[in-house]
């Protein structure tokens, strides 16, 4: 259990999950983005029109980082298993030779 909790992927999933209530809370309380949109709206500029671009920027950035960290941590686990196997095999051969 402790092993699962300390895995980088678990921590990253926890980070992503924690964004959900924050996002809901922000939307519900009409946070500064929306308030600012109203303020700037007085200057005939609709700031909300580019929200999809902003969304894409943040999604791509975090997806890129999470995918990379996931791939690296999985590769590390595979390597650790392979090292362990090779060490065992080598020590078995050496002890068989001596025996």
């Amino acid at each position: 259990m402790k092993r699962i909790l300390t895995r980088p992927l678990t921590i990253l999933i926890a980070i992503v999950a924690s964004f959900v209530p924050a996002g809901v809370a922000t939307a519900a309380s009409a946070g500064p983005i929306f308030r600012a949109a109203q303020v700037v709206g007085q200057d005939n500029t609709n700031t909300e029109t580019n929200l999809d671009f902003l969304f894409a920027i943040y999604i791509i950035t975090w997806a890129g980082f999470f995918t990379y960290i996931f791939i690296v941590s999985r590769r590390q686990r595979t390597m650790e298993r392979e090292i362990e196997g090779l060490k065992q095999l080598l020590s078995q051969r050496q002890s068989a030779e001596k025996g």
Partner: protein
Amino acid sequence: MVESIGTKRTVWLFATAVLVLVTMWMIFEWVPTERNLGVVQRALYVHVPLAWISMVAVGVVAAASLMYLITGKRRWDSIALASAETGVLAGTLMLVTGAIWAKPIWNVWWTWDAKLTTTAILWFFYVAYLMLRAFAPPGNQAYRMAAVVAVLGAVDVPIVYYAADLWRTAHPELIIGPAADSSGLTSEMGLTLLVSVVAFTSLYIYMLVDRYRVRQSELEISDLKREMRNYLYAPSTSDVPATAQSLRAAAAEPIGD
């Protein structure tokens, strides 16, 4: 020892996660919206830190490659590789986020502006570095060639940094680093950018250490396999005919001038 490093890494990742959350709160809840660019200006707090860590990564690759060329120690090469991979990731994300940001502001995804072009050249340099390492026959020769590419690529860093000052570009002026003019940012914007830069730098360090560990494991595996091969297939001295033994001894002797 390994346990202790693992715990430190977890603590570091946890601290980074908290920092990232604080940054996200500041970006979406606290910092005011820029009046002219509107909501999409919030891309700044990701785009600039990505540019920052890609430049730091390039600096680390160049320094580690130089140390590898001087000392020949594998440790430096591993650091260079880890930083190059992380830097290419950050550089790719920087170019992609820049293109997405450019579309609503400049009405084009890409323009052959001095800043953008020199950044693309830098990105290609480090992609070439990774490709050279991936496709050249493994060995010190390939690693040395890659190290030379890395050092040469670093020459482009000051050109990228000062491009907006040296040429007339569509790209905004510098707001981070030694020649920065951040007067266009309010104090909240400046603070948010600073916190974001710290968070991304922390993430870069975590990824660098993680990738470095993988590289060390790869080297350990190749050493173990070599040891295994030598152990299994090397004929014992008694099995080798005398002629072959003498040939081996001759081959082992250094060649004179």
